[in-house]
């Protein structure tokens, strides 16, 4: 089976949650013998290549890094399209992230880059232009390449998927990693919502990363439940190395690691920290990451007068993420809306007990994590206090969590995706044989 896959990022270029997931999934599919052509806009920056197709084999840096994964690369034919955009990032963050990535040559593939997109002025117009351009390019590619099925990741590539389907007549699967409701709460951008809904309607199958997202797709976008399938994300730890660090602080450390944006609920973490500190002084809180609520969070911490016990690290790259986990005694993900959420899995992998919000997709697959409503600051504070105070609890959550997370394999997720492909193909075939049009 040959798949024409449309994505927006892919490691080691700029790798956020979406990039990591795309990578894990393609790798898993490769194990099941599925061949993939992965199309992505080049998130490099300056190049003004209006319509360009780049075979990525010439990208020496990437090849050298992943040259060991021959099996994988034989199956992924890589193409890039010039673009100056990355999804979910506001221009400032984008610039910063790119500069950082270029400067250090590292890539923070552990951090979820998903961000509330701020539609302001020029950039907004450019983004839509880019999406349209990407779709146009998709048509060209679809006409030239030979494949059986189209798979498009997240709204920026839906239009591309639709065009490819129209050009080739092949079935379209779209993969919903996040919806506009996750990114912007109730203040959805209508244009983005429309693109999302059009994609979901045009698709033969819709894959969602959790039941939480599946419900949103069905209820908020009015999509036929029969064609919406949940395939939970997995996590790939093969490339991770455990980092052992000597801790400089004596206190226990409670960590929030992720983008500091509305979606991630940083304010609930701060309020809970304040409550815990009143009862349990032998602890430090760390907020690792950056985002549009960064400055507001710092001000709130100063207001609460807890700044000598509450620290900010800024955006963490490379080894620093693992370092942060090995510094941590408790990991908290208080997301307001999280379609899935990879980072608690990474924390669990490092043996750190986790607290996650019930409003996250990952809560559907995890048993050994404490789950609270994101808005319930008291419950969150209570859970933090318990993990700090009752060692048996933390120990069990840490050990069981590690075991649990090791069971979540992309290979298994990919198998489910392959099933989705098959059902989409069968559906098309039966339609054709019964004389129905596309």
């Amino acid at each position: 089976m040959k798949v024409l896959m449309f994505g927006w990022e892919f490691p080691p270029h700029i790798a956020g949650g979406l990039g990591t997931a795309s990578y894990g999934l393609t790798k898993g599919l490769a194990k099941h013998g599925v061949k993939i052509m992965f199309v992505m806009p080049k998130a490099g920056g300056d190049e003004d290549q209006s319509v360009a197709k780049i075979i990525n084999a010439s990208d020496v840096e990437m090849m050298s890094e992943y040259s060991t994964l021959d099996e994988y690369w034989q199956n992924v034919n890589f193409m890039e399209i010039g673009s100056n955009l990355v999804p979910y990032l506001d221009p400032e963050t984008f610039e910063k992230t790119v500069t950082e990535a270029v400067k250090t040559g590292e890539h923070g593939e552990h951090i979820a880059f998903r961000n509330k997109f701020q539609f302001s002025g020029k950039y907004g117009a450019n983004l839509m232009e880019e999406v349209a351009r990407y779709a146009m390019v998709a048509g060209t590619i679809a006409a030239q390449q030979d494949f059986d099925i189209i798979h498009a990741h997240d709204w920026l590539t839906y239009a591309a998927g639709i065009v490819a389907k129209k050009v080739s007549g092949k079935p379209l699967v779209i993969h919903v990693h996040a919806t506009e409701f996750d990114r912007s709460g109730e203040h959805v951008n209508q244009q983005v919502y429309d693109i999302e809904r059009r994609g979901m309607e045009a698709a033969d199958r819709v894959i969602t990363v959790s039941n939480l997202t599946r419900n949103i797709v069905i209820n908020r976008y009015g999509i036929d439940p029969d064609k919406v399938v949940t395939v939970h994300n997995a996590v790939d730890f093969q490339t991770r190395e455990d980092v052992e660090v000597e801790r400089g602080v004596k206190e226990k450390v409670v960590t929030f690691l992720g983008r500091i944006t509305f979606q991630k609920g940083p304010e609930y973490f701060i309020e809970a920290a304040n409550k815990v500190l009143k009862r349990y002084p032998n602890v430090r809180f760390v907020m690792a990451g950056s985002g549009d609520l960064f400055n507001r969070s710092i001000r709130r911490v100063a207001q609460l007068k807890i700044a000598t016990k509450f620290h900010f690290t800024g955006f963490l790259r490379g080894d620093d993420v693992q370092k942060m986990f090995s510094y941590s005694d408790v990991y908290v993900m208080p997301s307001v809306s999280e379609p899935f959420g990879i980072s608690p899995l990474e924390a669990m992998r490092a043996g750190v007990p986790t607290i996650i919000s019930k409003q996250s997709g990952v809560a559907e697959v995890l048993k050994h994590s404490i789950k609270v409503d994101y808005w319930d600051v008291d419950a969150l504070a209570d859970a933090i206090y318990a993990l700090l105070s009752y060692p048996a609890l933390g120990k069990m959550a840490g050990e069981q969590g590690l075991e649990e997370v090791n069971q979540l394999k992309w290979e298994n997720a990919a198998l489910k995706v392959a099933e989705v492909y098959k059902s989409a193909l069968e559906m098309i075939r039966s339609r054709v044989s019964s004389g129905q049009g596309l």
Partner: protein
Amino acid sequence: MRKTLCFYFQIHQPVRLRRYRFFDIGKRHDYFDEYVNRSTIRRVAEKCYLPMNRLVMDMIKRYGENFKVSFSISGSALEQFALHTPEVIESFQELAKTGCVEFLAETYPHSLASLSSTNEFEMQVKRHVERMQELFGQKPVTLRNSSLIYSDQIGERVAAMGFEAMLTDGAKHVLGWKSPNFLYTNAANPKLKLLLKNSRLSDDLSMRFGEREWGEWPITADKYVRWLNDSAKDSEIVNLFMNYETFGENQPAETGIFEFMRSLPEYIFSMTDFEFLTPNEAVKKHQPVAPLHVPYPISWSDEEKDITSWMGNELQTEAFEELFKIQSRVRALNDPVLDKDYARLQSSDHFYYMRTKLFSDNDFHRYISPYETPYEAFINYMNVLSDVILRVEDMEKKRILVDEKDTDNEENPVKPKKTTRAPRVKSAESAAKTSKKVDAKEKKVKSKH
């Protein structure tokens, strides 16, 4: 009686922090950016301190007792001169010998301690006075506080230390219809005289001198002296207070600022009845006209002339409170290395970098912050401060152990803690707030061994 022209120059350089991360807390205690500090000091010495000192010396040689200036040099600047450019100290010492220069007292690290109720302010001033005596053989009798910060209360504290006079800003919201060009006194203690900065004439040099967009550009000595005559018609003293970095650094040599200064005395002597005096001479010569009521602190900063540049947002207040919360404990430990670090963290600059009103401030470009945003400045400062707090806690514990050892006659030396995860005692908590608590806990720990 001749009118008085009083030049006062401020010399200060903070010891800038390096990027100190959360991961460094408890591990590294080197907080300062050696490279940036060294290169800054060397650059400013070359562009400003050395050439301007040469010029002042030339003028003193030429006009003798008729040309006088005053300086205050912060302890943190002196420390760094001693390390990187000792010739700067020597040239100030040469100036001191002429007798035409008054050295003023200030807080040693150029701090905000006067805004704290702790005795830190008095201690820092005392330390600075001692240093002035050591280096320049003068015991300062006039005090100038960081950025001319002043209030009735601060004035009282300064008077209580025995100072005769203090410098502050002629802030409009405090003066009202009154002129800054007279001598005033503290509201509570008339013994303390106040010299007020003439903002317009001072800022014409320090802020506007090289500004080509300014309608009055270029300023010549001739023009400037005419302004001086106009603005000082019915007054007695004109106080020109400014950063010494005005000469050659903020106003680069190309603006002609050095030539301007070189020719200024000639015009003053020929066109006016002003004489150059030092602050101490000025307060002896003139009679105060009125007490000045300043219930809330003022400074020479921005349009507002208040302290919002350092204490204007919650980040700054939090940093300030945490810094002074440990003051008595740092003092009690009396450890030279800790004292030095603590003093360096006192510099008002660290707080200035945290200001959030900078975007509306048109003189922001004069104060290049080492940080991209005030938030980063806060994070970095608080990380360093957190480490200092940890050191204080550790040292307190060690002291108690040593004390006990002395009384118990124990043989075992105290082991420095290096465990990755320290043993946690449930109830006592490691972050004990009082030494009594620590005492109890350490006894418990010890009895286990």
